[in-house]
């Protein structure tokens, strides 16, 4: 199911939880794992100096430095590496999101695993998040394969997935997310929760909804889920449908906690091309920041079709 996993890491403590999930998954599903680190940002045109991703310092980049960084990564993940040997370590310089996407494409990865610093946890401030808008933002939006984001300490991976929440906004991108959620649930024998949150924050509509309108919307959404997704789950019946009202990201997180689910699957669907504005703006990113389980972002069908 996950033949090739690309674990994109800053190799700083902010990625520790993501590392645990990446190694655990690779071991459990017998995947080839690439630990991928973009160590520095070459911001000076053709200059041979790079800005170290972890410290923000300018360093002179060469093979020795590269080897040293790889050695560091090996030490950081020494324990995990002992448990899982089918693993390659790669480090290079570049703009992080560009290189992560390039590597995923080149290696034909089935899954990218990434960490994300939460707001409270500011270690490694000069992490991927700060660079060129947001690495997370760009990777989740553009990646051809699903991207699994691990945001919080509690979001670790103990014994595989058992309950999966698929949060839909009924967009085309959400279609791919559904296929992924469904296939993972089916293959790994999980329960699938098909969930939609009707947005009643009023921000978008510019008006407050009457109670009967809300109830109408809930009914319509439920119907939509039944029509759009249920017929495609041939023979699979371990699912439930739920529609709540509220602010979507809050509801998804609440719902997930209530169902003790261990994976959320969503599309990172935004038309806002400016990473600055969209930074932490999308529902997905809010969910990533708050969820206590890994969040898979799936935008495209490519890697999902042959799962």
């Amino acid at each position: 199911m996950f033949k090739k996993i690309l674990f994109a890491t800053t190799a700083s403590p902010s990625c520790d939880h993501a590392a645990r999930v990446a190694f655990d998954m690779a071991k459990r599903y017998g995947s080839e794992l690439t630990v991928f680190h973009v160590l520095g940002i070459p911001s000076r045109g053709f200059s041979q100096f790079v800005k170290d991703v972890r410290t923000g310092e300018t360093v002179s980049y060469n093979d020795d430095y590269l080897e040293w960084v790889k050695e560091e990564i090996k030490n950081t993940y020494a324990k995990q590496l002992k448990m899982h040997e089918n693993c390659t370590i790669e480090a290079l310089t570049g703009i992080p999101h560009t290189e992560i996407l390039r590597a995923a494409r080149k290696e034909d990865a089935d899954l990218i695993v990434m960490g994300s610093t939460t707001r409270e946890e500011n270690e490694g401030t000069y992490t991927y998040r700060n660079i060129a808008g947001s690495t997370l933002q760009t990777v989740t939006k553009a990646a051809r394969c699903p991207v699994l984001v691990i945001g919080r300490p509690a979001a670790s991976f103990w014994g595989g997935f058992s309950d999966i929440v698929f949060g839909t906004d009924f967009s085309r991108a959400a279609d791919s997310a559904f296929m992924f959620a469904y296939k993972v649930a089916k293959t790994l024998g999980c329960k699938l929760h098909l969930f939609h949150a009707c947005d009643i924050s009023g921000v978008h509509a510019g008006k407050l909804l009457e109670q009967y309108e809300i109830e109408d919307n809930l009914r319509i959404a439920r119907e939509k889920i039944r029509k759009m997704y249920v017929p495609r789950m041939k023979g699979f019946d371990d699912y439930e449908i739920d529609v709540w009202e509220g602010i979507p990201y809050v509801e998804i997180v609440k719902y997930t906690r209530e169902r003790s689910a261990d994976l959320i699957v969503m599309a990172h669907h935004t038309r806002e091309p400016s990473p600055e504005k969209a930074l932490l703006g999308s529902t997905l990113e809010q969910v990533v920041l708050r969820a206590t389980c890994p969040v898979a972002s799936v935008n495209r069908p490519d890697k999902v079709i042959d799962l």
Partner: protein
Amino acid sequence: MPEGILCNKKMVDTKEQLDALLADAGGAQYYKEMKQLDVDSDALWVTIQKSLKSRLKTWLEICAHCGMCAESCFYYTANNRDPRQVPSYKIQSTLGELVKRKGKVDNTFMQVCMDTAFSKCSCCTRCGVYCPFGIDMGVMFGYLRGLLFSQGFTPWEMKIGTGMHRIYKAQMDVTTEDWLDTCEWMAEEWEEEYPGLKIPVDKENADILYTVNAREPKHYPQDIAEAAVLFHLAGENWTVPSEGWEETSLAMFAGDWAACKMQVENVYAAMDRLKPKRMVVTECGHAYRATVIEGPYWAGLKSGQPPVESFHYVEWVAEALRTGKLKIDPSKKIKEPVTYQDSCNYIRNAGLADIPREIMSYIAEDFREMTPNREHNFCCGGGGGLNGIGRYREARNIGMKVKRDQILATGAKLVIAPCHNCWDAIRDMEEIYHMGIKWSFLKPILIKMVEVPEHLKPRDEG
């Protein structure tokens, strides 16, 4: 005649040589060896006699030491009017001496020349506009850099840069395969949002042959995608060449004239092979200068013109907006105060001053000129290769103060800079001086505001 392993008079023509240079952290060994490097005075004098043409000779002789060029140089004003930063002094004390002494100079002198040529002059050619005799230090220092290079006295990064051109025909180690792969990748990635988007490679007789700066495939591939989107929306019949796609020339900054010739001939070969109607260069200043202005002379083209009529990106944008190939959604025009960085390399070298103003009139509501501007604009501080050279970073940072103050005086919050070097320099400026500004190329700004024709829109969702 001791020559170092890394610092020597040899050209970097093999990957082994290049790797050895790259492995030398910060050029430590390179600069150590430079201190031992012998000057071949005879060879130097022969070169000078052969190459110092009457124009430069006359310039050296007729300088009246009137000092009128002093204020024109941003390095002079940024360094508290240090007399050692007066353009005429800078050139007379280096190239002038070299010629006077018929090449009989020592290692220390050559290093002083190198330091001056690369840390006190960005070859912005502004002083030439103010000298009553039209004496242009940008051109003179370019020539001096060439002499220095032939003797092995060139900054470490420059030696690497020319090596890249010689080996990869690009300023960075981007192979043909990398290039093609990046084009394919970008078309795939953006195709969903822009159905039918293609990056056509090696299409013959296209209306436009588009060429780039190697930094784009290497680090900023979205730049290629953005160009593709705009050509696509404008309905252009365009293509990129599989070989000869790289326009820049670090070799020009270094004064490695043989590599300049190799590099530009590679682009011209693509023109000959694909026979496009015209060529458009990406948003880069020195690339344009190297390929369109200087290139024909390096390649020995009698006409003084590239084989195919060639344009800077701003020219294409202005035309597309003027003719309505690209339509701006008026509600999406830039509202905040915005200013424009005139890139020396296509302002003073090609007179493209009106074009950007025309563009700004279409896209900005509150456009503010820097003072001075157009042909009189100051260098961003990062020209002439100064952005990339570690040894002179401090000097460059001081030089950037002039542009910083120019920008701040406009009150603009956004600087549009259709030049990779200027873009980099302004970014660095913001990092060093915390001015609270943003900076951008034209492409991403245009993409946000152009109307997508109905038939090119993605099909509706949900």
